[in-house]
């Protein structure tokens, strides 16, 4: 239990340590992870591989599938964009300004993490519906259109952006800003040329996280979306419909496409972070 036997000379799974429990804890971790996450995901991979490239391609380029993917990605992109703008502003205000109620607002940012998506979905629908307290101010429909989807995705993605930028902004030292001011830069120049560029990796990471979350989001979106194929039907909903029809092949293909894209996003996020750590030395 204390240490694993070296498999070969010079190759060791782990460095020696006096602390017990390595085999037990790592073993349990791997077993649990495999059973709950890994094997099911592999099963999905095998299923979609079983289709062969042609079958996969045919199912993936089905017009309704493409339509749903387009709706999901475009709306998630817009929502992530809005979130980057307001998320950065909110992070700025929370870190830099002192005003009554700041702590409460800081806590409220996390609401989307805590509020179940279905609850958020029906609540957003209620207020943005044509007769809702916000919706009735608008001459056009918000709920039951792609705009509604964007609204739900903004809700879901906001804390990812704020919470990614906040700690980095706290790290920006006053002295750097003072240096910029003494060199003659106006406050606006200091913000746009010194502070925001140093936040860029965090902003990009926040964008990627919010985007990935938006693409996969289901609960908060379906109530407000309208769910009209080609217009406001999102990819996760189409998977759900295919499953209800017991069309597992159709569902698997959409899921595989979405997984490939979200893993690519995950990879990109890691690249951004590794790159910015290496080049600018953030986080050390």
């Amino acid at each position, binding site marked *: 239990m204390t240490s694993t036997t070296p498999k070969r000379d010079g190759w060791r799974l782990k460095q020696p340590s006096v602390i017990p429990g390595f085999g037990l804890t790592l073993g349990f971790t791997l077993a649990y992870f495999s059973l709950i996450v890994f094997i099911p995901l592999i099963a999905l991979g095998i299923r979609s591989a079983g289709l062969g490239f042609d079958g996969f391609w045919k199912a993936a380029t089905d017009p309704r599938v493409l339509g749903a993917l387009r709706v999901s990605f475009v709306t998630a992109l817009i929502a992530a964009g809005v979130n980057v703008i307001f998320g950065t502003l909110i992070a700025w205000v929370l870190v830099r300004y002192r005003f009554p109620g700041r702590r409460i607002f800081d806590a409220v940012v996390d609401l989307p993490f805590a509020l179940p998506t279905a609850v958020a979905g029906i609540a957003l629908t209620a207020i943005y519906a044509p007769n809702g307290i916000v919706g009735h101010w608008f001459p056009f429909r918000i709920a039951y259109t792609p705009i509604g989807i964007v609204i739900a995705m903004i809700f879901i993605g906001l804390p990812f952006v704020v919470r990614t930028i906040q700690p980095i902004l706290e790290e920006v030292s006053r002295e750097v800003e003072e*240096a910029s001011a*003494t060199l003659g830069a106006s406050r606006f120049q200091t913000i746009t*040329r010194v502070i925001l560029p140093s936040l860029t990796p965090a902003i990009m990471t926040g964008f990627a996280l919010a985007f990935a979350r938006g693409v996969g989001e289901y609960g908060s979106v379906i109530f407000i979306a309208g769910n009209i194929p080609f217009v406001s039907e999102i990819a996760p909903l189409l998977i759900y419909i295919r499953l209800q029809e017991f069309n597992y092949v159709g569902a698997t293909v959409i899921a595989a496409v979405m997984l490939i894209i979200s893993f690519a996003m995950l990879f990109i996020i890691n690249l951004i972070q590794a790159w910015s750590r290496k080049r*600018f030395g953030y986080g050390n």
Partner: protein
Amino acid sequence: MQVRIANVRKEFDRFPALHDVSLDINSGELIALLGPSGSGKTTLLRLIAGLEMPTAGKVFFGDIDASEKTVQERNIGFVFQHYALFRHMTILENVSFGLSVRPRATRPPAGEIRRRALELLDLVQLSGLEKRYPNQLSGGQRQRVALARALAIEPGVLLLDEPFGALDAQVRRELRKWLREMHDRTGHTTVFVTHDQEEALELADRLCVMSQGKIEQVGSPDTVYDQPTSPFVFGFIGESSELPVTVENGELWSGGRAIGVPAPDSKTGEARLFFRPHDVELVEHDASLAGVVTSSRRVGGTRRVELEIGGEGHKVEIDLPFDHPAGEKTRLAFRPKRWRLF
């Protein structure tokens, strides 16, 4: 540029960091602000820069009241202890920054900015590193970049806040020499903060010693070292020993006897005698300070011994030749050659 600080007072939330400070900084001189931690050195520097505004009093640049000017308009070069380089910019971009943020009307063309930045990098001996990022440089190199960046805007005054504070002793010593040479070549009016007296004595044209938000003494290194005007300065600059004495009949007395030091101009009564450990001579006769060695250690080429004088436990330090046979409990008699009373 000449800088005049007139009766400046600065409070932070009622806490006075500077009391009524006045100081004239001459054009082209290199002046050091020296003082213990919390004495207000940084605050004074930041007031000159316009990073803080005085609670009362004024700062003049030449004849112009600087309180009319923002930080941006003051045209000062500020170098921070922790460099404060822009991490997402290359070294070249860092150095060019000040010129490139100028309004279009006064901004030199891009090629000219680049040429001047490269020239400055050459001056600070960093040619060839212009494409690197700050975190790819050593501490000493970073501080030189910070200096080049500050010089790029051709500042009227150069302000350095413990520029070498974060560096190791070896690099410090090199940069110190190099800064002096730089100053001699470029002739910028320079104020630098340090709490390393050796650095201040070696580098500065004039010293400004501060303590508890006040200026204690301003003068050339020699003046401040040889003629300190207050016990604080005597104690803070260089080594010093202190002993309570009495002045009577134009002579100094300790422990009920004259110590052979005539003080014809001093006021009769109690006083504190200050002298430097190396400014003493050993004597044989009675009219002297005598004490028992309580500890002894080797400092470079001399031996520093601590003596207990009289029965009241007053201790002073004096220097002896390193081969002097004095050991613990040895009795020694000496007389300060140069001294001051406060």
